[in-house]
């Protein structure tokens, strides 16, 4: 099972998820599309400016490979400290 985390404004739209990734959801971009397809509000939130992604606590781009062992985080624009 993969863990999906949401931070900042995104955390208002979805809590953390533990999901069994479909066979065809094996990249960051595919995951984003899949999550958006399940929830229109989350889709809108994920498309906002400044959203970034981390896989296993490393910054990642859409083409990053993901699997069911991973922790994937979607982060709204940072506020700074």
């Amino acid at each position, binding site marked *: 099972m993969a863990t999906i985390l949401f*931070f900042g404004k995104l955390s208002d739209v979805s809590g953390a998820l533990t999901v069994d990734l479909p066979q065809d959801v094996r990249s960051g971009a595919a995951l984003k599309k899949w999550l958006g397809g399940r929830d229109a509000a989350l889709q809108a939130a994920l498309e906002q400016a400044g959203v970034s992604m*981390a896989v296993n*606590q490393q910054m990642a781009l859409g083409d990053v490979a993901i699997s069911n062992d991973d922790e994937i985080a979607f982060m*709204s624009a940072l*506020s*700074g*400290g």
Partner: protein
Amino acid sequence: MECFSITVSDSPFEPERAHADFRAAALGAGAIVAFTGLVRPDENVSSLTLSHYEGFTQSQIKNISEQARARWELSGLCIIHRVGNMVVGEPIVFVASASAHRRDAFEAADFVMDYLKSEAPFWKSETRGDMAHWVEPSARDIDDKNRWRS
């Protein structure tokens, strides 16, 4: 003696206590610069909450700390960041740098603060009236950070 530390915690901290510990550990340095950021009074804001991504936030701050160590001659760099709910006047952030040279200590603390304020993975939520809303970095914070691009 060298002293490099990063703390992200939802417990309040005393900047002076952190300064004393840092000064003791950085024995031999000629210059210590300490920045303390405090929650400013704002009559429209009733509550301030800072979220982070445990582990990831610390590792991103560690990157910043390592950049500072590579760029300036430091014998110590201490970074403490509050998260969670905070009230007016409470310390949010403490950055102390120690060096043989005054200029290195000043620039390193200034650099770390600019990055923390603009790029560190924190999400700030303010409650105004009954509405909580998320805050993004100010244009000023982004300008400050861009000063360090070479």
